[in-house]
């Protein structure tokens, strides 16, 4: 008990003092996860929109794959990417292993199915009358698609934020491809894993508190997005 309280005190001390190493780790975590998420959204939202609006043979197969992808075990993603990027792997010549770029790619792989599948689901749910209404008011097919995406905006945003929640919390994939190199590829979750292993609880605890706070903020945002749709401009 004594030791727990002591560790908590030191952790809070680290947070309050804005320790440099501590801040660097948080900032890299955010950079990696947010970059991965932006790239996942750039590809995932249009793909989700396409899947949500167009019927074509094999569409259901794609959707089942995406839903499976939503639950991909991060360590397995890490393993595959490690094999791709390792010196003797097919993409070894890119020298990406143990770089923040590799970590972004790994988190992109994890976030992409979530963003895509949740975008698709919310776009499919848009009332067909919206499409007809846009059309009868003179929208071109492209404008109709944009209007439908806009109608689904809260669901899409919820998907993006759910993706952020997942990548911020995962450790398996980035640990394998990033290597947890101090000052270069250490992020919150990998540091927690390593420092705990070393019995170095204060830094781990401090980061744990920050991670929980971020997760709390993400979920609060998600809650409000889903609850309260503030009307915005159309198109």
């Amino acid at each position, binding site marked *: 008990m004594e030791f727990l309280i002591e560790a908590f005190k030191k952790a809070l001390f680290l947070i309050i003092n804005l320790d440099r190493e501590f801040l660097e780790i948080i900032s890299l975590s955010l950079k990696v996860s947010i970059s991965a998420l932006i790239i996942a959204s750039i590809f995932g939202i249009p793909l989700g929109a396409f899947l949500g609006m167009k019927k074509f043979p094999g569409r259901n197969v794609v959707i089942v794959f995406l839903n499976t992808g939503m639950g991909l075990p991060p360590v397995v993603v890490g393993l595959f990417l490690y094999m791709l990027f390792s010196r003797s792997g097919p993409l070894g010549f890119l020298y990406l292993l143990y770089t923040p770029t590799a970590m972004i790619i790994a988190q992109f792989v994890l976030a992409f199915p979530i963003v895509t599948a949740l975008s698709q689901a919310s776009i499919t749910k848009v009332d067909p009358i919206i499409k007809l209404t846009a059309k009868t008011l003179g929208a071109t097919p492209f404008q109709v698609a944009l209007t439908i995406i806009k109608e689904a905006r809260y669901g899409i945003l919820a998907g993006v934020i759910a993706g952020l929640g997942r990548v911020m919390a995962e450790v398996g994939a980035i640990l394998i491809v990033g290597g947890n190199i101090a000052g270069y590829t250490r992020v919150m979750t990998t540091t927690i894993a390593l420092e705990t292993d070393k019995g170095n609880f204060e830094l781990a605890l401090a980061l744990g508190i920050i991670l929980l706070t971020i997760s709390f903020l993400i979920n609060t945002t998600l809650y409000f997005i889903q609850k309260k749709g503030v009307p915005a401009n*159309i198109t």
Partner: protein
Amino acid sequence: MTLELIVSKIWKIYNGRPILRDLSFVFDKKEIYVIMGPNGSGKTTFLKICALLETPDKGEVFYLNSDKKRIPEDINLFRKITYVFPEVGIFNASVFDNVAYGLKIRGLKKKEIVSRVEEVLDFVGLTHKKKQDALTLSSGEAKRMGIARAIVIEPEFIFLDEPTAFVDMENTEIVKKILLQIKERGKSTIIIATHDTHFASKVGDIILKLENGKLLTENFA
């Protein structure tokens, strides 16, 4: 420019049952046409085919310009035609933005959009609601918004399917006034499907009855 709608020998068959059979008609007046008929007689089917939202199984529907030349079916033609559904499709946005939609997608300048939208909102009596979330409007208000959104784009053809469905007497009266005023402007052909006989006799210049897949002229005393 004046547009004419030609319906030529159209057939529409659902599950082996002809809903429209060899139906021909010319809509060439800037007046109010009312199409009546019981439930299931094919009014909506006919209106959608006329508005180019559906295609007939046989026959043709096309529009002519003032030189009696056939207009190609492209976005320029679609932008001259609009359709108000019985259950108005509402965008998750303010009343103002809903009404502004057709103008925004046509790339009009903001200033012109604001003045035109405000004018029609005033016209349908929704000025005080312009900032309200459109999804919270009552059915009667939603109907008026649907009409405002359609007329703001100054279409040459307006199709209204059951404009008085879900609407109380007071709002029906307002819808009637709005439609008569649009007619007075003389810029649009208005085609209404309804089974509200009273409403039809009040607004209709030309009353048609859909019966056994044919369109008949009806006389109201």
